[in-house]
């Protein structure tokens, strides 16, 4: 499930930036590339928190390149086997209860993904931020020995995006610290924050990421990554509808 947070979590390893005013587009690009690697495998837990209840799901995720990913629920038993396949901005979901694969229609893309605070779009359209937005470096500051870049990304007029503006905070080692989504009136709607950063799979990554609604403090979804491996050899056959239906891994 690495693709899911991909939009939001960009992180990278080493190789700090040298130039004084880096190009914001390149910053985001590098953050995303390094978060994803050429391919990856990860194990994670997603916790959905609401004022009166909370539940957790364990998931596995595989990615390849920019546009291909597979996520499968492992626990709890009741939900095990549910999965999502994303390929070139198309999304399919599989439900073992009814043994059907369903293509998620574009009208449902802004709906919640697996009941979380992430939308289907957050999960599937992670590279939109690169080709459908105009970026501007707002601020550069020093903190804990790192240089921090704050980037403002405004979608192009014709971009199919519900947000008016996004504010992305990236550390000089390409860890994405914060990603804020603002509406057309420039009011913050939801914010994704890295809550823990550590070495995983040989890279410094945000290992706990929380997506929270701004106007409802008690509503958030947290993804905590237990294990991640980069540049694995994920075969193409993994990212097919039949593999979504019949897990072989």
């Amino acid at each position, binding site marked *: 499930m690495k693709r899911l947070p991909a939009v939001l979590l960009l992180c990278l390893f080493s190789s700090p930036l040298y130039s004084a005013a880096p190009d914001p587009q390149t910053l985001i690009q590098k953050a995303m590339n390094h978060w994803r690697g050429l391919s990856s495998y990860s194990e994670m837990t997603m916790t959905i928190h609401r004022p009166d209840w909370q539940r957790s799901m364990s998931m596995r995720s595989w990615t390849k390149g920019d546009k291909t990913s597979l996520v499968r629920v492992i626990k*709890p038993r009741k*939900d095990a086997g549910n999965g999502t396949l994303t390929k070139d901005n198309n999304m399919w979901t599989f439900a073992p*209860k009814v043994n*059907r694969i369903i293509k998620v229609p574009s009208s*449902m893309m802004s709906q919640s993904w697996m009941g979380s605070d992430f939308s289907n779009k957050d999960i599937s359209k992670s590279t939109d931020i690169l080709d459908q937005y105009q970026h501007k470096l707002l601020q550069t500051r020093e903190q804990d020995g790192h240089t921090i870049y704050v980037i403002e990304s405004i979608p192009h007029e014709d971009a199919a995006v519900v947000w008016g503006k996004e504010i992305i905070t990236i550390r000089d080692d390409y860890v994405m610290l914060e990603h804020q989504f603002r509406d057309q009136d420039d009011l913050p709607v939801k914010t994704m924050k890295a809550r823990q950063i550590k070495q995983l799979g040989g890279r410094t990554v945000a290992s706990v990421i929380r997506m929270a609604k701004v106007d409802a403090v008690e509503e958030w979804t947290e993804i905590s990554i237990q294990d991640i491996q980069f540049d694995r050899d994920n075969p193409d056959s993994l990212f097919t509808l039949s593999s979504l239906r019949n897990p072989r891994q």
Partner: protein
Amino acid sequence: MNITLRMAWRNLWRHKRRTWLTVGAMIFSNLLLVFMISLQFGSYRMMIDNTLKPYTGHLQIQHKAYNDDPKIRNSFAGIVPLAASLRRQLNTRKIAARGVAFAMTSSKTRSWGLQLIGVEPEFEPLVSNLPGLLKQGCYFSASDAAEIIIGTVLARNLGVTIGDELTLLGGGRDGSFAAGIVKVTGIFESGNNTIDRNMAQLPLAYFQSLFTMQTHGHNIAIVAQDLTRVSALQQRVNKLIANRPELVVLDWNHLQPGLKQAIQADLTSAWFMYGVLIILVAFSVLNTQLMSVLERTREFGIMLALGIKPARLGSLILTETFIMSFLGLALGTALGAAIAFYLSVAGFSYPGMEEMAGKFNIPERIYPSLSLLSIFIGPGIVFICSLLAAIYPAGRLFFLHPVSAMRAV
């Protein structure tokens, strides 16, 4: 008959034609007012009925957070037994429990997001008209059957007909995945595009198991005998659920706030036009009475000289106006009510109605609604304004000097 009344009556018929013209103006305006207001009330009633019938009902019992925040978690437990006990205590069958959820609905080829309503097959047809609008197929066979009825537009969008299977995919009340396969047993056509495209009904028991609702549901819809009894019924229901503090009873005005506002906006603009009509009638009365006072200046001068008090003359003028207005009121109202009554039975339609009807969700024929209020409110105001218009001519008499009045031309 006292002397003032007799004099007023005779004075009026000294100028038959003028009196009839003035009375005629009143009859015409009263007739128009009765007809228009009845028509308006009738179309409002239909607008309300047609908006509330497909789903809303007159009253709904909900979890107190549900109306502002319609989430699947804002439900309440034991909905079916509660509905059953309300039916018993209120001695009516027009009460039905429901659950509401959103889900992705897929046929073999297409998927759409959809609002799903879990209903009690036995009682839902008594509170809403969707079950009665089935164009094809039939209603549910049992409360736990894996069956669904959908609208015509959705059926076309999904490319399904009776007997086909749909896959539902959504989130349950506990956050788990809800997935099920249901058979399309019926296709309804309400004429309301939004409902025909976005709404579907399932049997409640099946709905509850699909969305892990246990005994929970989201609303109990109640339909009163008619609109005027809604608030009394609301108070009774409120007392009956007083032991469940998490619940509220909301009337249709809370559930469909746009409806009353649309009616009020329409009413306000209509009253502006009625106001113009009424003012015109009042001025025509003023004109008539002022003329009749001025042309009788010498006559009034003589009467004053004979010792009649100005107040007596003033009341004579007012009595004349009263008789005229009363004639206008009686004839206008009778004619207007007769026409409105005929149309309230036969129905009424005019060219271009279909489009407006579709827009405001009313049928293509409207039936004026006759009530004491709709009949008398317009003519009553005309009557009062006519009397007010006579005050100025009558008041002039108080400033008449007998000697100069007798010599006036």
